[in-house]
């Protein structure tokens, strides 16, 4: 690990100030900024040890859990999850589990008990890909790590890589689970930064790799996620997270589906679907939603929705199985959601 400046701050204002105060010329991407916020550290310290991230200044924001960013609030206006809430706190919260099961399950199925105690919700959605060519600096070709250097995964060992939202510059998959739950429930992101506070739809947080895979989010340097808000919705109760992986616990998804359903008898009034493990970013499957909305939820409709979800899939040598696995995961998730007794 390279040496770094260290600051510990007590509130959001001080955090942003500590981030911008050095006058360093910054990249346009928050994830590649030499200044990094430190919460649970489960991504940042890991990647700094690997020399993948080279923070020159680390700003410890853990004290922000004493502020509004450390709170979970539930009311008729919906759910507000402070960004400094730890994964385990949100996963165990009775209102989260009861009213937004897909959120509780996505968090519960992620990582290990220790990591869930450490990792903040804000940091969780910003975790970096597990692509081994990104994580191992002995590979010279990684457009995410060194823009313009190429992509070793395209013709490398790409079993774990994405089939949706990929580009010819990067096929790394987005590794998280919680993001898919937020995406499916139309969550919003509260952000604070040097130019003031703003709020965006969660769907606007992550960027597709395109020609700039090193730009992973729309956060500007020094911007900080302060909270996520999830609106109340008739489909939130009938929601779940299904995760398929190589081992049954403590493993990243090969394919996952966050689904939320509003049924009227056997007919789909509204449905929300987000897919994980198969895509370069948290992936909303709008084509699948369109196939289901207003239709009878039967075997055939569900199959056609799964087909639609993966119609644009682009597989490489080792990850073609994800297309079929992803479809089956979605089919099973929809069946399970329909069968929920709520």
């Amino acid at each position, binding site marked *: *690990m390279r*040496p*770094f*400046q*260290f*600051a*510990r*701050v*007590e*509130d959001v*204002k*001080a955090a942003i*100030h*500590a981030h*911008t*105060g*050095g*006058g360093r010329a910054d990249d346009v991407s928050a994830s590649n900024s030499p200044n990094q916020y*430190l919460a*649970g*550290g*489960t991504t940042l*310290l*890991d990647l700094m*040890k*690997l020399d993948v991230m080279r923070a*020159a200044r*680390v*700003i*410890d924001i*853990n*004290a922000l859990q004493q502020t509004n960013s450390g709170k979970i609030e539930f009311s008729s206006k919906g759910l507000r999850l402070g960004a400094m809430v730890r994964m385990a706190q949100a996963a165990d919260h009775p209102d989260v589990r009861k009213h937004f099961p897909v959120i509780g399950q996505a968090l519960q199925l992620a*990582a*290990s*008990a*220790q*990591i869930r*105690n*450490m990792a903040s919700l804000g940091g969780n959605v910003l975790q970096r890909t597990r692509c081994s060519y990104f994580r191992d600096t002995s590979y010279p070709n990684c457009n995410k790590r060194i823009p313009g250097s190429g992509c070793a995964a395209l013709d490398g060992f790409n079993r774990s890589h994405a089939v949706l939202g990929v580009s010819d510059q990067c096929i790394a998959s987005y590794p998280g689970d919680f993001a898919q739950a937020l995406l499916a429930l139309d969550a919003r992101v509260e952000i604070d930064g040097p130019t003031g506070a703003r709020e965006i739809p969660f769907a606007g947080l992550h960027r597709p790799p395109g020609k700039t895979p090193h730009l992973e989010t729309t956060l500007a340097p020094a911007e900080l996620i302060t909270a996520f808000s999830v609106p109340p919705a008739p489909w939130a109760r009938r929601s779940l997270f299904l995760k398929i992986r190589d081992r049954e*616990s*403590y493993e990243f998804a090969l394919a996952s589906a966050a689904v939320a359903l509003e049924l009227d008898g056997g007919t789909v009034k509204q449905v929300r679907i987000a897919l994980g493990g198969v895509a370069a970013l948290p992936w909303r499957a709008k084509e699948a939603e369109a196939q289901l909305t207003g239709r009878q939820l039967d075997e055939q409709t569900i199959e056609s929705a799964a087909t639609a979800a993966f119609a644009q899939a682009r597989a490489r040598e080792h990850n073609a199985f994800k297309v079929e696995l992803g479809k089956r995961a979605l089919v099973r998730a929809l069946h399970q959601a329909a069968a929920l007794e709520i």
Partner: protein
Amino acid sequence: MTDQTRGWSRRNLLATSIASTVSVTLLGRSGAEAAPATVQTNPRDPVNVTLRVNGRQHRLSFDVRTTLLDALREHMGLTGSKKGCDHGQCGACTVLVNDRRVLSCLTLAASADGQEVTTIEGLAQSDGSLHPMQQAFIDHDAFQCGYCTPGQILSAVACVKEGHAGVDVEIREYMSGNLCRCAAYPNIVDAIKQARPKMKEA
């Protein structure tokens, strides 16, 4: 290593004494804004940290990159916590911080300043009698090589305290962050079930 009780707020003193440095280096753009509570401006300078480990206060000075695991092992001589992968994947370094199990290899020691840390050395009572979980691991032969065992035991203690040690499948799920290359898993589950009621009595 020095032990000391603090009767005054070291953090406040640090914040005040460093504020003057900060005003030059960090507050250059607008001095009106709030200063960070603690700042290490030269990456090569050691940081001063107070850690409370197993009920004893340790005032230490070390490189800012030092993890809590390295602080325990290299600066305090508490070698019970083990370094397995050093990347948060194996659980051998598990300790309790403020009674919650965390990975000490992915925790900066500087971030743990002022926190309450419990390691395997702090579980037994002062008369040497073992914690029920330690005794249960012995009774059930819940280890072979023993390298993962300190992490397993601390994780198991937390697992019971969290209320996640109900049925076997729940224990396995909530203990999945601790790998055992000797595959003592069935015996670990048995040990946790033995210790669970005894911990509640105690």
